[in-house]
């Protein structure tokens, strides 16, 4: 690892930091916001902005330090880092992480800490009260996101065990996806679900968000190379190929089943391809990326349509169905396609690595799922998590924020 500042690498990670923040503000906010009904659009946008704000403060205060600073005690360090860099103390302007300033690394990582809880919103959209949502997210960020990040990227036990997660399949998508599933089970389905039609109020908005997510994901994945080099280039390539393949396959499946392809389908497919390639993006070749994208589309297609309806839970915008399932799937497939024998970069035994990946997913899912339930309970008892019937009927925008999304008369 070089120890001199490289301005080119720094420029790329600075740019990636902007790209990944852009994925949440306004990318994900629009992607989700377009999928809810008019009366709830602002509540989703508000949730994204408030999460971005509160998590920034928490991350700078203690999150970054607990995730990326070693704890003295090695045993402790296996599960969580230390407080040596609370409030970025001991992070002088000159400090480097690899060849980039540590402040840049800390901010790049912050954008991941922001989008992860924001992804959960999709599961409980249109029915959770704002106050409880914010309290839950603040706690979740510290209790779930920070430790898991340390496990995988901060020198914790998953990393030492040899688990592979290039850009966040486990850290971001598994944690958020499983949390989403738990929150929607905890809150119960929306009033009228599934009989009442709840069509997206503006697919146009969702498409804008999807475009921002797609482009932003270049920063998410290729930025994780922390350098502007061939590794970043190949990572970007894998990302683009998986997204495009998944989008195409999803459209094909829709055409097979319904006789036509839809715009909601193609953007969902693209996002599934992006989420699924994330953990593998830096380790695989073109062939692996295509395979992962194709499998992602097929699996997520069924989890987000057939599967969900069959089990009857109300994952409003498929936070689990797309991000969670994609994250788990991708993390496992990383164990396969990262292998040099399949055009990847890692000298691994596929069998063993898949086992490690499965264990990593299981442990992360268990921790995220369990803690999410506990934290929801706390937020619920403290502030009341579920919007009452009238609030749901009138909509969260007017009842929780006293605003309306549109006044087009």
């Amino acid at each position, binding site marked *: 690892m070089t120890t001199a500042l490289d301005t080119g690498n720094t420029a790329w990670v600075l740019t990636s930091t902007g790209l990944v923040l852009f994925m949440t503000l306004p990318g994900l906010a629009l992607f989700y916001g377009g999928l809810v009904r008019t009366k709830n659009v602002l509540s989703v946008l508000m949730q994204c902005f408030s999460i971005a704000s509160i998590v920034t403060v928490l991350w700078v205060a203690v999150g970054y330090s607990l995730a990326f600073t070693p704890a003295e005690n090695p045993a402790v360090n296996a599960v969580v880092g230390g407080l040596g860099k609370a409030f970025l103390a001991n992070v002088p302007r000159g400090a480097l992480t690899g060849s980039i300033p540590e402040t840049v690394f800390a901010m790049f990582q912050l954008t991941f800490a922001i989008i992860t809880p924001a992804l959960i919103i999709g599961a409980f959209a249109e029915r959770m009260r704002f106050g409880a949502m914010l309290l839950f997210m603040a706690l979740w960020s510290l209790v779930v996101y920070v430790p898991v990040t340390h496990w995988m990227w901060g020198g914790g036990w998953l990393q030492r065990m040899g688990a592979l997660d290039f850009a966040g399949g486990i850290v971001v998508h598994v944690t958020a996806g499983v949390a989403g599933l738990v929150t929607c089970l905890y809150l119960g389905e929306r009033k009228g679900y*599934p009989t009442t*039609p*709840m*069509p*997206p109020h503006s697919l146009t908005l969702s498409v804008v968000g999807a475009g921002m997510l797609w482009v932003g994901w270049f920063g998410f994945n290729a930025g994780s190379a922390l350098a502007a080099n061939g590794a970043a280039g190949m990572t970007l390539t894998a990302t683009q190929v998986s997204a495009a393949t998944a989008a195409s396959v999803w459209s094909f499946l829709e055409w097979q089943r*319904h006789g036509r392809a*839809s715009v*909601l*389908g193609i953007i*969902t497919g693209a996002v599934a391809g992006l989420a699924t390639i994330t953990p593998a993006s830096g380790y695989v070749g073109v062939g692996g990326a295509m395979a992962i994208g194709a499998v992602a589309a097929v699996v997520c297609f069924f989890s*987000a*349509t*057939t599967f969900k*309806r069959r089990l009857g839970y109300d994952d409003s915008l*498929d936070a689990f169905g797309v991000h969670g399932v994609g994250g788990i799937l991708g993390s496992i497939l990383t164990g396969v396609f990262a292998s040099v024998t399949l055009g990847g970069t890692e000298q691994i035994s596929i069998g063993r690595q898949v086992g490690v990946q499965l264990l990593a997913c299981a442990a992360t899912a268990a921790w995220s799922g369990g803690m999410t339930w506990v934290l929801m309970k706390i937020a619920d008892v403290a502030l009341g998590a579920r919007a009452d019937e009238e609030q749901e009927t009138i909509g969260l925008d007017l009842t929780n924020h006293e605003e309306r999304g549109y006044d087009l008369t």
Partner: protein
Amino acid sequence: MKFVIAIVKPNRVDDVREALSTVGVRGMTVTDAKGYGRQKGHTEIYRGAEYKIDFTPKAKIEVAVDDAQLTLVIEAIRRSASTGKIGDGKIFVLELLETMRIRTGETGSDAL
């Protein structure tokens, strides 16, 4: 006087307006509406959730006319709104007791 309400296909509104002008109608009021009837609606599918939409977009044209104009007006609407396909819509005629032009306070036929 009579108060005529015509439910027509949205893309017929301009033709109806012209047809009415030619028979001497000087004003009308149009509202967007959703119609339910023999014409069937459409289906929308979002991530596997299939919604049957029974309503079709319609335009509601309201026009107050003199008794003398009535038959001409009805005929004009029918002619200009008709495409021969299901869903062309309806014409309803109600009795109109009084009319007033807000600007001038004129009443009756003068207000039309």
